[in-house]
């Protein structure tokens, strides 16, 4: 086994991923090459830090109850605004409808009045057209 091959296979050896034949070749090389032996020690020590690292982060004893509280607090917070929102929306909608009815009613009255007057005037014009000046003068002449 060459130094280059060993350099690629150290972690696989440490984790027991090599065949027994390959492991024996690697061990033989380590015995014969000081440089690789030193590197192997450094790499294996550093790689072992993963196991130490795992022990570093231990969950708190009340981890589970903290999460439960947090989830239910978030739920309450989410629910409260929705209730407030709903009441605000309902009030605003009612106010809007009331305002709409009042304003709409006022405009409707004005427009009704206008349209009524206009319609009657139009009808009057159609059925009783204003006499032309010629017709008036001709009447005057006849009476004279």
């Amino acid at each position, binding site marked *: 086994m060459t130094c280059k091959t060993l350099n690629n296979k150290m972690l*696989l050896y440490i984790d027991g991923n090599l065949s027994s034949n390959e492991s024996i070749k690697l061990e033989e090389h380590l015995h014969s090459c000081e440089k690789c032996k030193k590197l192997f020690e450094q790499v294996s020590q550093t790689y072992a830090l993963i196991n130490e690292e795992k022990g570093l982060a231990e969950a708190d004893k009340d981890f589970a109850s903290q999460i439960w509280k947090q989830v239910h607090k978030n739920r309450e917070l989410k629910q409260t605004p929705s209730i407030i929102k709903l009441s605000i929306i309902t009030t605003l909608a009612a106010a809007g409808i009331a305002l709409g009815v009042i304003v709409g009613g006022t405009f409707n009255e004005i427009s009704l009045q206008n349209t009524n007057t206009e319609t009657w005037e139009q009808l009057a014009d159609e059925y009783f057209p204003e006499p032309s000046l010629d017709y008036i003068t001709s009447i005057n002449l006849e009476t004279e």
Partner: protein
Amino acid sequence: MSDKELVEQIVNNDNQRAFETLVNRYQQKVINICMGFTASTDEAKDISQEVFIEVYLSLRKFRQESAFSTWLYRIAVNKSINATRQAKKKLLVRLFTKDNANANELLIPADAGAMPDAKMTKKEDYAALKQAIKSLPENQHIAFTLNKYQELSYKEIAEVMDISLSAVESLIFRAKISLQKKLAEHFNKKA
């Protein structure tokens, strides 16, 4: 009580005790997964808290087609990856906004000093290891973390990642070779 029964208790009765039992059963495993992606224990704990909140909120959508643990580990991986991406963005911003003298400090994991026998193992070696793991392609990073930090079997990793067994083997094999090269480079530089 089995995971399935606990899940049913939570979904049907919003049972606090069942939820806490489930969290206690898996909290350390989830923290270990998160540790594989983060630079500090505090960060890992924060992410794992998010994981269990997500679990509670999504439990009604869980169809029990896979094992609860598989589903949970998927959430843990996704949350960790998202957190890593956000951290990378923040780091880039800080690297560009702060003077370069502080740049190396930002790359050293926050827990380097807290490692046992910190003097012997050296902060730099630990930082080099974490940096090497971080720089792995995403799929290799996930497979390696589930294997080394969570000690899941290749079969379990295949289920969590939804890939074939041979793909898992290949990812972990390549991850280890890549890590090996980076660690060798690190020690050769020091020599």
